């Protein structure tokens, strides 16, 4: 995983609540067995006017001019500003991969769905939760300001707006640590292999039916 520390970037707005992962990456793209290449199909049904399929060249597809991510002022945005309960629905990590592949590194919303929120941290994306009023304020500042840029400082846990306003944000210290250092958390868990084996011995004692001598049923 890439390390994450600071980002200063144009902000793209997606002014809707309850954006689900089916909308972020429609299911036909889940037939890929790869972890990359989803960026062109991010928000596929909103971004394009035709129906997308896996593996197609998206450069020639008709785009929906109304959709914010298609507007020139939001190209190369690494920060997405959106509304409550972003990422609800399916657990598909493909949604996070698509956002990452399309260049997004920070998401700002009043709330995120639990599974999506956890997936972000596994993939080097920082989801920032801010109060609904604060998010509202950012939407209002952004709309009339082409090139509206935010600076994100993860070590200091703060956002700086173009006017110099500083907005603090909260983050789980463990997740912050993993993001800052780009840590492979599987390796971290495997450091506790002895504790896992000891735990298994206790469980085997208490719930022996979970540790059959040979595989049953299979």
């Amino acid at each position, binding site marked *: 995983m890439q390390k994450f520390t600071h980002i200063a970037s144009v902000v793209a707005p997606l002014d*809707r*609540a*309850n954006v*689900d992962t*089916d*909308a972020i990456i*429609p*299911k*036909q793209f*889940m*037939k*890929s*067995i*790869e*972890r990359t290449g989803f960026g062109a199909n991010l928000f596929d*049904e909103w971004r394009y006017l035709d*129906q997308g399929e896996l*593996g197609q060249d998206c450069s020639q597809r008709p785009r929906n001019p109304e959709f914010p991510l298609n507007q020139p002022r939001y190209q190369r945005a690494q920060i997405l500003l959106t509304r*409550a*309960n972003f990422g*609800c*629905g*399916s*657990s*598909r*990590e*493909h949604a996070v991969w698509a956002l990452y592949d399309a260049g997004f590194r920070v998401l700002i919303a009043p709330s995120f*769905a*639990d*599974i999506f929120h*956890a*997936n972000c941290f*596994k*993939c080097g994306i920082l989801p920032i939760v801010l109060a609904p009023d604060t998010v509202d304020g950012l939407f209002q500042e952004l709309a009339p300001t082409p090139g509206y840029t935010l600076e994100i400082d993860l070590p200091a846990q703060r956002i700086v707006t173009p006017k110099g306003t500083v907005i603090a944000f909260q983050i*789980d*210290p*463990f997740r912050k640590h993993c993001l800052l250092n780009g840590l*492979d*958390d*599987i390796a*971290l*868990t*495997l450091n*506790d*292999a002895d*504790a*896992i084996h000891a*735990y*298994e011995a206790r*469980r085997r004692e*208490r*719930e*022996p*039916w*979970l540790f*059959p001598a040979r*595989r*049953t*049923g*299979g």
Partner: protein
Amino acid sequence: MSARTLFDKLWESHVVKELPDGVSLLYIDRHLVYEATSPQAFAGLRSARRKVWRPETVLATADHTVPTTTAERSAPVSIADPLARIQIAQLSRNCGEFGVTEFSLSDPRQGIIHVIGPEQGATLPGMTVIAGDSHTSTHGAFAALAFGVGTSDVEHVLATQCLPMRKPQPMLVQVDGALAPGVSAKDLILAIIGKLGTAGGTGHAIEFAGSAISALSMEGRMTLCNMAIEAGARVGLVAVDEHTIAYLKDRPFGPGPEHWDGAVAYWRTLTSDPGAPFSRVVRFDAAQVRPMVTWGTSPEMVVSIEDQVPDPAQEPDPVRASGMERALAYMGLQPGTRIADIALDKVFIGSCTNGRIEDLRVAADVLRRTPGARVAPTIRQALVVPGSGLVKAQAEAEGLHQVFLDAGFEWRAPGCSMCVGMNADRLAPGERCASTSNRNFEGRQGAQGRTHLVSPAMAAAAAIAGHFRDIRS
């Protein structure tokens, strides 16, 4: 010891180690794997030269992309969609290489992971169960701590049998009273989601309790827990009782005779202690629940069959009002339209929400009670897709398939099918479907398709009428 909730008991019994900052390393007992969210996880193991920690805890099958016609299932090479064919073949390759048990497409036990887990006794009380699928909450019906994860966590559990997790808050949804005849667990959970909202359970593990829950069959409890995630809660739970124990007797992956009594004795402790503290309690009167129909593009956009499509102009919150307007435009509906007047193009009975034997019995019963029942001529397709090969075989042994076929339904082979539209079973743009599935999101059942979530009985009644109809009348 102070009174503990069922959730607290399950959580605490799986903590391998407390990590810094309130994170726990949680042990995972059962891992269900399918084709669409696992290839990248196995690839990750391969590139890091890691093994599967306990392959015998993993059970795999293909469900999301599998075809549901017999012709396409005669051999892996007969799958028409090349992408699905590759993904399903990759699952078999991965399971072979890493020593994981797989129910292949030709295995009569194949089916939707959330149907086959309990059916096989691979889901047991007191377990932690994960899968790379949000509807893993289903397994909470057995007092198992079950939740969906992303592919990175699928890989994490394959490699370590553990997940670092922050503890959610326990929440109680207390449902007392009796559901009226014709009103099902599906209607109840839709009513609950309608009240809590689609993010109402975020950060929480919901335990469903009360006399209405005790009265539900295990199938009904699975339907309820299945859709906890549609209220934002990763975890749904129901305490162990006699229904739970009776269901699990003699299941192939369950405890053998030598462990049965010990297992049952332990399982009986898996209830919330009297007075256990929940961070939030919400109460419902089951008697007030009516057959429910979603009208919009989120499961919280739901009303009863007696109601009308709501008017965004009456909604004070501007973000919600604009969401309602967008949903109505997408669904092609006008405010004030009676739900019973909404005409349908397709009907889908199946999914991990409502693809079990009880669901098929209820739907077939609606057809049997309607003399000369035929799918309305305006309905282009009515599909019944059993949740597993064993559900299909059971239904056929009971003659249910003939009831569906005689009425003009198609009787298919098991899989996720039109719930997720990853195979050929999907809606065409603009088509409107009465569906027993779990999500009415934009494009969920097919690009530009329009989904109305209902119970199996309501779907069967709608198929005959061509529009929604109150199953109670």
